[in-house]
């Protein structure tokens, strides 16, 4: 189904709940793909808006990741910094179909071409 617009990045089982894994894009920004404890998946640029910390390495709770460098809490759904902190990290549309993860190709590509 519309596989053409979506980049298959493999089965859901490769990311344990409560963790994230990374997807480097040659010539552009690395993407972090998150799996929450409640079973949802999100993809974001793997850079905290604060000091570019690798969000993929943070502790995931609810649908929030705590940046490993300075503990900024980032909403996985919106990419926005929560609490008193201000900033936003780009999100990449993601969907799950038949046990596989797909990223919106144009969101991945635009970033790569822009670089």
């Amino acid at each position, binding site marked *: *189904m519309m596989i053409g617009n979506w*980049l*298959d*990045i*493999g089965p859901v*089982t*490769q*990311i*344990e*709940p*409560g*963790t994230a*894994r*990374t*997807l*480097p*894009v*040659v*010539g*552009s920004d690395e*993407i972090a*793909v998150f799996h929450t*404890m*409640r*079973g*949802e998946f999100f993809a974001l640029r793997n850079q905290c808006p604060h*000091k*570019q*910390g*690798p969000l993929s*390495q*943070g*502790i*995931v*709770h*609810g*649908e*929030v990741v*705590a940046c*490993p*460098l300075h*503990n900024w*809490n980032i*909403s996985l*759904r*919106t990419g926005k910094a929560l609490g008193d902190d201000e900033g936003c990290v780009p999100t990449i549309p993601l969907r799950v179909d038949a046990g596989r993860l797909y990223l919106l*190709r144009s969101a*991945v*590509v635009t970033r*790569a*071409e822009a670089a």
Partner: protein
Amino acid sequence: MNAPVNFERDSFPGSGRERLVVIGNGMAGCRAVEEILARDPLRFDVTIFGAEPRVNYNRIMLSPVLAGEKTFEEIVINTAQWYEDNAITLVSGDKVVAIDRAAQSVIAASGRVEPYDRLLIATGSDPFIIPVPGKDLDGVVTFRDLDDVDRMLSAADRGGAAVVIGGGLLGLEAAHGLNLRGMKVTVIHLMPTLMERQLDEAAGYLLRSELERRGQTILTGANTREILGEGGKVVGVRLEDGTEIPCDIVIMAVGIRPATALAREAGLDVERGIMVDDHMVTSDPAVLAVGECVQHRGTCYGLVAPLWDMCRALADHATGAPTGYEGSVTSTKLKVSGIDLFSAGDFLGGEGCEDIVMRDAARGAYKRVIVRDDRVIGAVLYGDTADGSWYFDLMKKGADISPIREALIFGQAFASGGALADPNAAVAALSDDVEICGCNGVSKGTVVRTIQAGACSLDAVRSSCKASASCGSCTGLVESLLAVTLGGEVQSGPRTLCKCTSFTHDDVRRLIVEKDLRLIPQVMQELHWTTPDGCSSCRPALNYYLLCAWPGEYVDDQKSRFVNERMHANIQKDGTYSVVPRMWGGLTNPRELRAIADVVEKYDAPMVKVTGGQRLDIFGIRKEDLPAVWADLNAAGMVSGHAYGKSLRTVKTCVGSEWCRFGTQDSTGLGVKIEHMTWGSWMPHKFKIAVSGCPRNCAEATIKDFGVICVDSGYELHVGGNGGIKVRATDFLCKVATEEEAMDMCAAFTQLYREEAHYLERTAPWIERVGLQYVKNRLAEEGAVERYAARFRYSQQFMQDDPWAKRAAGEDAKLHQHLAEVRPFPTAPKPQLENA
């Protein structure tokens, strides 16, 4: 009961009625016919094709049949008499194999051709079979119809073991039935939480505990690799991790797929299901479809409730009074006797959503209501589902819950009591002899008198009359009583562990031991956590407290570890890591130095630095290279230096009596011994030790967590020093005569700190909080040093296992590897994927 049924009625040639042919004798097809007959009994000549050789029955009641709670006769919806009374032709056991839309007829397997004016497709769904080797073996069954139930029952009669693949609604009901029938049941579930589409982690944990208590084995996060057979029959299941589970029958219950093959071949619009409009009309106006085989406004339903609404809309339209179906909000109840579980709507939450959580450990209950824009959008209830239908009703109506928000979670009886919607008012309205604290039998009157006698905080109430001092489930009530009794003068109690709980660090540590709590979700349930899965403050703390309380038993939860402890290296500002191998007592040798030099060159490390703790720090290592770096360092005999952990860091030494003209004892040798004893131990915070060979104190032992200063007559032991943000010199603990005594006191002090300090509290603030005298008193108790030291050494048996060696050997490889790499070509816009 399985005899084929075939009721032919006399046809009424030229009756002038429209011919309605229904494919599917299941719940949807028959319900649709019933609805039509109720509106206009003479409109259609009805013919129903059923693939199963029997009358229509209530498929969702197959679970109780399997469990022996109902008989087949009890779940029949329409008897043979019904078909006869309504002049319906039932063609059972003869499957429709094609639809000829041009000729407006259907063709059955027997060759029978049945013309139609209106066709209704109600083919339902098919069980999804995971494509693993062995899926076609004799003894692999699905759970969809009565034949499947018969197969399971005959297997159960022979006894033995069953494996159920799929821990969703259907799989768990199958497992329950087989378990009741005396089989040894193992449930294999791919995801970490049972029924993850309906339940969150907390409710899934409660469900799992209950099923395990009933004797089922539940394996979550388990992927089936192969079904094993001998002579064409099932003998077991092998998982991805190599585990083999012997069994006599495998029930495949991983999900369902809309049965759309007939519709697709007939050229109707089909996506996941057969596309229908709000009147259940397909892309061909003469063809209707209803039930689990359809896709309506993008949704396919696998539950029974939407079916009734669909059939109503279908019948309204087919009899000329169209109303339309607008989709359904669904709820789920698990049909396993004795387990109350309810789930409805959206429980994933999301932006702007607020969770209201209530846990009642005493009753094993968990309630979570998800609210957005003052509307209930979802609910998960376990143990107490009495209010399920009320929440579901609020949700379907989209009712504004702001007036009853505070009391919403307590349920309908409480929330709809008008003035009682204010919890404080509700508590004020209770009579004096109502029991507030069930654990300690404290009545409202007693709590109020305690408060009036001067207990102005929760903690004061707890220590004075014991209300809410045990399980804590009445904390909210006690707080309300404080508010009601004192007005605005409630004093805030000691700081709680984090915003997810009303308990303090001390409470949590005490209750983990008292209540024998062994897992993070269990702690959260028993101690009434107000968030479903905690936060980045409480998860690492709980992980440490459990690790400390249950050495050798608790399995470390990697996802509750801060990055450095999860990666066993120190993250740097650019996202690379630094690596510090252990150098015992600050000693090294040519082999270690060569290995470090080789690593620096091989991985192009941009910097090497001598640390304050007398070792070498290699900078700029990428996470994917860490296991290889560690393998190289291991090969030279080096292990993790834990420079990244809330753990023993280093034991700093001076050269001591072996070389130094002032040295009084072998400080280097003692330092090495102490480091061998203490390395690898997880602590509330980082922990540094030093041993100086004389009072000149070259090893700076008086700003360490534990410092030894050697003197002619023995060893002076100092504790609670810190050279960080707030410099604090150590307090003198005691003086001992021998190395052995110094080692024992070091082990005992370390263990006391491990067992009693708050997570992320260094020894310096800990000692300032509890007082040096307290520490001295604890260690001066009869036999205390021996007991604490023994507990420390017992725990160390499980800790002194080099984490680097395990990672180098391939453990937790996912933490280091990328998922893949995207390589977009400048000329072609399509990105290529290269598997890592």
